[in-house]
């Protein structure tokens, strides 16, 4: 039995379909991210899970029980809001204790539970401060503690890291993931930041314009994007489009232009004349001054731009002036650095090109 299941969830606002026939299951203890650009419906899905939005169609099932008609306060979920939504007139202790007070826990129990969760988020000693006296990161931890103190079935997080600076984001990212793992709690995390989603999640669900595009592990999403949108949205990629001019023995020949053709491992594309697009990640393109003769998919190109980014550098290579490829190389200090104007050879493995649907 899954911890959470969404069955054919659909929601229409005015005339726009915010959520379109979404199916999802989440296993107990899993960390699932819902990722997508602004307006894709990810927050609406989260709010439907929480109960703040009623779906027009479909079922929300928690622990095997349908909860469509259960109000938010009875679903036993913990939620962290983008703005943290801390109660400004209450201390940190009172904020966290709020949920326990509602259920009439004894004073002793409340004290114990609050102290425990405070030490989990490393804020022991902050009990008597007010939200207005805390930094962004601290507020966030209080919001997290408040959501966790009642041991909810599922932890819901609505872009909680958006308001933090880059360094704090990375730090909080790790902290949230660690706490989640330590407590073994099921989490659904909404974000528009693909790096965050890849770094934190067991699985990622990518949404666009209300629809689910792809659900998979970070590795699957990155290495095997199902279409151009996903390939482009996650990390950087090169989209190579052309026409299939030959297919034989599980390999096809993709003609990009008169001088450029690629051999691609693909047993599914069977007919010639079809137009197809493939994705190849910049980090998968090999570069060298020379490749052994007879190697497949080797082309000579000229570097048209170089961007230094610290641990890596990104280059744009133009092949015969007909195909531009972005490649990425570690700055390991060992190989000769490349600069604009240089000529290099690139090679792409036949098995590294990923076919993109539509």
């Amino acid at each position: 039995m899954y911890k959470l299941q969404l069955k054919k969830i659909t929601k229409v606002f005015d005339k726009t379909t915010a959520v379109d026939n979404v199916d999802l299951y989440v296993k107990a203890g899993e960390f699932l991210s819902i990722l997508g650009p602004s307006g894709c419906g990810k927050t609406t899905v989260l709010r439907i899970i929480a109960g703040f939005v009623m779906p027009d169609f479909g079922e929300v099932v928690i622990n095997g029980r349908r909860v469509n008609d259960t109000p938010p306060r009875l679903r036993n979920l913990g939620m962290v809001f983008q703005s943290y939504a801390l109660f400004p007139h209450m201390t940190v202790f009172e904020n966290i204790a709020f949920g326990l007070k509602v259920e009439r826990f004894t004073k002793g129990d409340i004290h114990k539970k609050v102290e425990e969760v405070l030490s989990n988020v490393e804020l022991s000693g902050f009990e008597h401060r007010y939200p207005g006296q805390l930094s962004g990161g601290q507020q966030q931890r209080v919001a997290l503690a408040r959501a966790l103190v009642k041991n909810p079935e599922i932890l819901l997080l609505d872009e909680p890291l958006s308001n933090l600076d880059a360094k704090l984001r990375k730090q909080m990212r790790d902290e949230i993931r660690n706490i989640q793992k330590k407590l073994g709690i099921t989490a659904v995390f909404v974000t528009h930041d693909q790096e965050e989603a890849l770094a934190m999640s067991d699985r990622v669900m990518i949404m666009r314009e209300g629809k689910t595009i792809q659900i998979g592990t970070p590795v699957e999403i990155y290495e095997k994007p199902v279409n151009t949108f996903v390939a482009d949205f996650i990390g950087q990629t090169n989209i190579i489009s052309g026409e299939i001019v030959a297919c034989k023995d599980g390999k096809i020949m993709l003609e990009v232009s008169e001088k450029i053709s690629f051999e691609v491992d693909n047993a599914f594309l069977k007919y010639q004349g079809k137009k197809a697009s493939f994705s190849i990640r910049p980090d998968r393109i090999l570069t060298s001054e020379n490749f052994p003769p007879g190697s497949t998919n080797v082309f000579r190109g000229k570097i048209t731009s170089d961007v230094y980014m610290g641990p890596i550098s990104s280059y744009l290579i133009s092949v015969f002036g007909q195909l531009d490829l972005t490649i990425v190389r570690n700055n390991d200090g060992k190989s000769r650095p490349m600069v604009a104007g240089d000529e290099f050879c690139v090679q792409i493995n036949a098995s590294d090109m990923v076919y993109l649907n539509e």
Partner: protein
Amino acid sequence: MLLAFVFPLSTMIRMSFNERPPIGDVVNTFSILNYNKIFSDVYYLKIFLNTLFIGMVVTLLTIILGFPLAHKYVHSKGRTKEVLLLIILGPLLITMVVRVYGWMVILGSNGLINNALIHLGIIDRPIRLMYNPVGVIIGLTHVLLPFMTISISTSLQNIDNSIYEAAQSLGASKAYSFRKITLPLCKPGIIAGSILVFSLAVSVFVTPIMLGGSGLRSLVILIYTHGLVLINWPMAAALATILLITLLFIMYLQNRFQEKNKL
């Protein structure tokens, strides 16, 4: 600024220590004759308490009526919101006298309410809704409601809505959220509104004199009477000074109350 405030006030306070004999002009002395008279005569005490009583009732009524109004206003959008704002500010858009005349039409023996009640057979003879404290309270509440409503609206407006969702996600019912979140966060607005409404209720003049009848129940009317009818400036000044001190005291109390509950 300071001059505009301090000078008239100090003149008034200085005047309260003068005397004015039954015949003749104001005598410049330093006597507490006026204050003696005020504190020894039950008549003045009754009026004083009456004024305070009316002030408190009006304040309470504006809170009870103003809160739902403010809540409705803050949560409405677009057209509804514009209309509500007009309704809320309505009383302020017409002058006092016109407004009070309006009330007289509604509350009088031959007025709207009495006619409706008699017509419906609920009463045989008109009830006195005017020329007594009831009329004054109704009129004052109507006039001062906008101040309280706006004050509470400001507090309500500043509450981040996701707080309520957070409370819900933690298991709180609407009633619980209202008690533990809305009310505490509205305290500043309610207190500010109360200070305003109370001070105005106690010092307003037109409404009591027109709706209150010849009973002379308001302190302010008393001041007016002494000052402009009896031309006993020292006495009027003394009464006014006492009113001033009372108001300052109430404001001080409310401020202390707010400080204690400060975030």
